[in-house]
């Protein structure tokens, strides 16, 4: 079992959280060839919350995560992370956000260690070499550190991509199907990370179909369908526009099922 270490400053537990919302969107929309992947959503996610992003395929979950990660521009509307505008302050937002997408973004011809070292250099990680070794150990790849990523399985690539997140000090972590391709140990690693991020006050927005596994870590769930928010439950998340008629328990239950 890998020892998981989170490299973020612990918030003072018990003190009121005065941080701005971790993520806030206003009429956020994204069109692909005229089709709305996001159809104008206005939400607020409070800092320090762990939120599940649920919905069927094509609901807009990945689009929302990519926009918040500055990897995709919105077609309309605006969004802020930690009070910073995603377009105007993109560079500062990138310092605060870590994103685990479907694709791992690794270089096949580099070794696991070289991939993380490259990431650490671009992230400006202090004490780079030690942190890279620690991250490799944390994700259970220390013994494969000098192997080229080309030889890795999908699950090992996923672990290494998780290791890359551990090199930074994000305040908002965006995970897109983090359990995909992982074995039991890998899934437990994700569980440990979710628990640790929650404990130190890092906001996590996680899109996953593994709802039962996630349940133990969640403060709230946000349900999307066809680019719109159809339901919200729990604490620390709000929609600033009215939800569709019927609310939670009707359309949302159908979507999540």
């Amino acid at each position, binding site marked *: 079992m890998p020892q998981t270490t989170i490299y973020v400053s612990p918030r003072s537990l018990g003190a009121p959280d005065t941080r701005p919302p971790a993520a806030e969107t206003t009429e956020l929309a994204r069109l692909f060839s005229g089709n709305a992947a996001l159809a104008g959503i206005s939400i607020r996610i409070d800092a320090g919350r762990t939120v599940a992003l649920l919905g069927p395929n094509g609901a807009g979950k990945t689009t929302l995560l*990519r926009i918040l*990660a*500055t*990897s*995709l*521009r919105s077609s309309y509307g605006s969004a802020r992370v930690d009070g910073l505008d995603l377009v105007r302050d993109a*560079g*500062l937002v*990138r*310092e605060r*956000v870590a*994103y685990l*997408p*479907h*694709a*791992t*973004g*690794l*270089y*096949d*011809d*580099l070794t696991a260690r*070289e991939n993380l070292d*490259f*990431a650490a*250099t*671009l*992230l*400006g990680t202090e004490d780079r070499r030690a942190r890279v070794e620690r991250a490799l150990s944390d994700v259970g790849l220390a013994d494969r550190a000098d192997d*080229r990523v080309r030889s890795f399985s999908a699950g090992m*690539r996923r672990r290494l991509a998780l290791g890359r997140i551990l090199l930074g000090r994000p305040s908002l972590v965006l995970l897109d199907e983090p359990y995909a391709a992982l074995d039991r140990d890998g899934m437990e690693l994700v569980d440990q990370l979710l628990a640790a991020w929650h404990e130190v006050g890092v906001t996590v927005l996680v899109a996953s179909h593994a709802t039962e596994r996630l349940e133990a870590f969640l403060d709230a769930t946000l349900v999307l369908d066809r680019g719109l928010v159809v339901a919200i439950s729990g604490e620390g998340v709000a929609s600033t526009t009215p939800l569709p008629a019927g609310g939670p328990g009707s359309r949302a239950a159908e979507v999540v099922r």
Partner: protein
Amino acid sequence: MTALRAEARVALAIARKDAVAELRGRHATVSTLFFAAIVLLLFGFALGPDAARLAAAAPGLLWLAVVFAGILAVNRLHLLETDDGALEQLAMYPVARRAIYAGKALGGFAVMLVLGLVVLGAVGVLFAVDIGSAWLPLLATVVLGALGIAAVGTFYAGVTVRLRAREVMLPLLMLPILTPLLLGAVKATSAALAGDPFGELAAWLQLLIAFDLIMLVAGAATYGFLLED
């Protein structure tokens, strides 16, 4: 100053990453060197066995081979970034976009420089041209030519990397822009090989320097827009 140093560190890391991947995978150099050699041989066959004619055409053939092979090389270097979403990941790092451009251009320059020097040597052997007596101006021409192709190629490879028809689009976009470079490099090479009888070499090298500077500045200023989806 600190920001500039940080950007230089990022650019060097990207160039080093490309160099390591290239040394291990040989995605760009081997195929493009063979391609350049075939281009030279085919031009040689097309022009016939007349040694004087081949020697006179050598500067033009050299730079046509370098440009054609260079287009392949910069395309291959950018394809590294399409592996498993690497380009998207690269764009999400909190670094200046111009540093990413500089890193990719530096990696491209290294490959282009190797390519240019090998093709220059091949031209000397195949077309019986004496490159030894004018090695310094020839080296300067190859360095400036390689830098210009890398500067233009890095930008346009960024434009086309997400396109399905990138292999077709890249030469269509690059070749018109590279015309001044091709002209300057051929003229500078000709002047150097002839011993610069009309004193024009410096002017052609200045043209190459101006071209490189303009393309590097324009590329650095605009490359960030290409990284956005």
